[in-house]
């Protein structure tokens, strides 16, 4: 059986679920950011797969994937800067212990 659109979409769904589990269940803020990057990559895979199989001549999905990469790069830079700032002031990056604004 040759591979088709469904294979790529299922792969994307599996990667997204792994990232979702990591983002929900981890304490370390860096690992949470890494899981979010996995989720963004999974979404990109499905965008490119749709672009390849549904509209091969238009490339709109690949343009979307490029913009997602831009936003992911900006998000990683700002997120990691926030982590460094929190580590400087509170000496920990455990997401459960950063509860300054918890009521």
């Amino acid at each position: 059986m040759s591979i088709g659109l469904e294979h790529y979409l299922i792969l994307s769904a599996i990667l997204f679920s792994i990232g979702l589990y990591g983002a929900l269940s981890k304490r370390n803020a860096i690992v949470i950011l890494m899981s979010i990057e996995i989720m963004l990559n999974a979404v990109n895979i499905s965008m490119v797969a749709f672009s390849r199989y549904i509209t091969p001549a238009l490339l709109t999905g690949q343009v979307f994937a490029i913009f997602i990469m831009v936003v992911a790069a900006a998000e990683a830079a700002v997120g990691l800067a926030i982590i460094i700032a929190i580590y400087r002031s509170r000496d920990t990056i455990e997401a459960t212990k950063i509860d300054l604004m918890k009521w």
Partner: protein
Amino acid sequence: MGLDIAFWILAVIGIAAALTVVLLRNVFRAALSLILCFLTVAGIYATLSADFLAAVQVLVYIGGISVLIILVIMLTREVQRGSPSNKLQFPAFLVAILFLMVVAFALINTPWQVSALPPLEPTTAALAGKLLGEGGFILSVEIAAFLLLAATLGAIVLVREK
């Protein structure tokens, strides 16, 4: 046939690497397997004949974001403490499995309108026309440049010593 074999190898390695990122306790090794996961995603783009995106994936993710993540791991000395799970581990697992099952069910039962046209390649010139050409995404490109500038300035301000 070659594409099939490449897809299966890349998919298995990519899922294994992503699972390693989530399950490993050592943060530094998790970051290294995250790089492997990014690399397999670049390979997946190549099997989808998205050559420009594969190159950009290697440049931006492996060359930029991974280095940034490893730098922050080094700066925060989190390797010794590891990455334990919080109290929500089992509900999170349940949510992820439920999400995967629902999405897979929807994907398999949707009649996709697959086009018979061959893929466009090479894609670089066509993508440049889409992004910068007439009737393209030029406004979004400008906004993306502005977003990157704002993110760079924000990161500098956040990590600056008082």
